């Protein structure tokens, strides 16, 4: 699975995700990527793209959960994303991670497994590329 989240110079947020799914998945299986609110979400508060055990992200509506925590519980993006990935995803016996950016341009990339291929940049600062914690 691959994905991107962005905040543009006008402060607008967007998310996109694309995947082949899981090796040897049943033909016809639909994962979290195309389920809005599960593997992909964007509103005025946050944009989220997920990767990992799709069925867990669907059952937990986890991309939307991050937005809900921020809007309804007043959590920061860092706290909301950490709770969703490190607690809720694990409680659903899932592994994986998310990338997210909020209306202030803050970026988080938490994951609860060995590694996540990821990269990020703010304005023209040098880009960051990482795989492990």
């Amino acid at each position, binding site marked *: *699975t*691959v*994905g*991107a*989240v*962005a*905040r*543009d*110079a*006008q*402060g*607008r*947020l*967007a*998310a*996109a*995700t*694309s*995947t*082949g*799914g*899981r*090796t*040897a998945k*049943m*033909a016809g299986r*639909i994962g979290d*990527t*195309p*389920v*809005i609110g599960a593997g*992909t*979400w*964007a*509103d*005025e508060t946050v944009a989220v*793209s997920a990767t*990992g*055990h799709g069925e867990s992200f669907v059952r937990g509506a986890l991309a939307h959960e991050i937005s809900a925590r921020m809007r309804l519980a007043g959590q920061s993006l860092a706290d909301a994303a950490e709770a969703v990935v490190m607690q809720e995803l694990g409680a659903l016996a899932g*592994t*994986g991670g998310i*990338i997210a*950016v909020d209306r202030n*341009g*803050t*970026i988080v990339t938490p994951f609860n*497994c*060995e*590694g*996540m*291929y*990821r*990269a*990020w*940049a*703010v*304005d023209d600062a040098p880009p960051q*590329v990482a*795989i*492990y914690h």
Partner: protein
Amino acid sequence: MSFSIAIHGGAGTILRSEIQPEEEARIRAGLAHALEQGRAVLRAGGAALDAVQAAVMALEDDPCFNAGRGAVFNDAGFVELEAAAMDGATRAAGTVTGLRRVRNPVCAAREVMRRTPHVTLGFEAAERFAEACGLPLEDAAYFHTDKRWAALQQELARIAAGGDASQASEQVKHG
């Protein structure tokens, strides 16, 4: 006002011992390239939605990653691709699932958002819609990578030997 962008190329059990240095270098280069495709849109004052589409297209074209050209195979031995795009400012969303020939599924998702009253289109009808939108389609060979095919054979053998399909190793599952 400033802009920000982040991308991912998948998560899972990525054992340092299993990734060869040259493979890791290819992956890091692919991530850096995709990030710059999206950042160039933002730097030019473009919309976040166009930036995330540009970045994801670059990742779909890179056989290192489980999407588009580097996609994993299902249990019947073919790819079934899915993608989504969502605009935070309007909450417009488009998603596709079950595609087998569309080169860039994220573009099909964007066309669903742009041209239909729906959020999700799937399978043969979605493929015909993408073709009608003029999006490039490829034959099955375009999506074939030996690495993913080997992972499928390994996983099918494991399941046939009584392994639980839901317990595949992360690396095999997600490529």
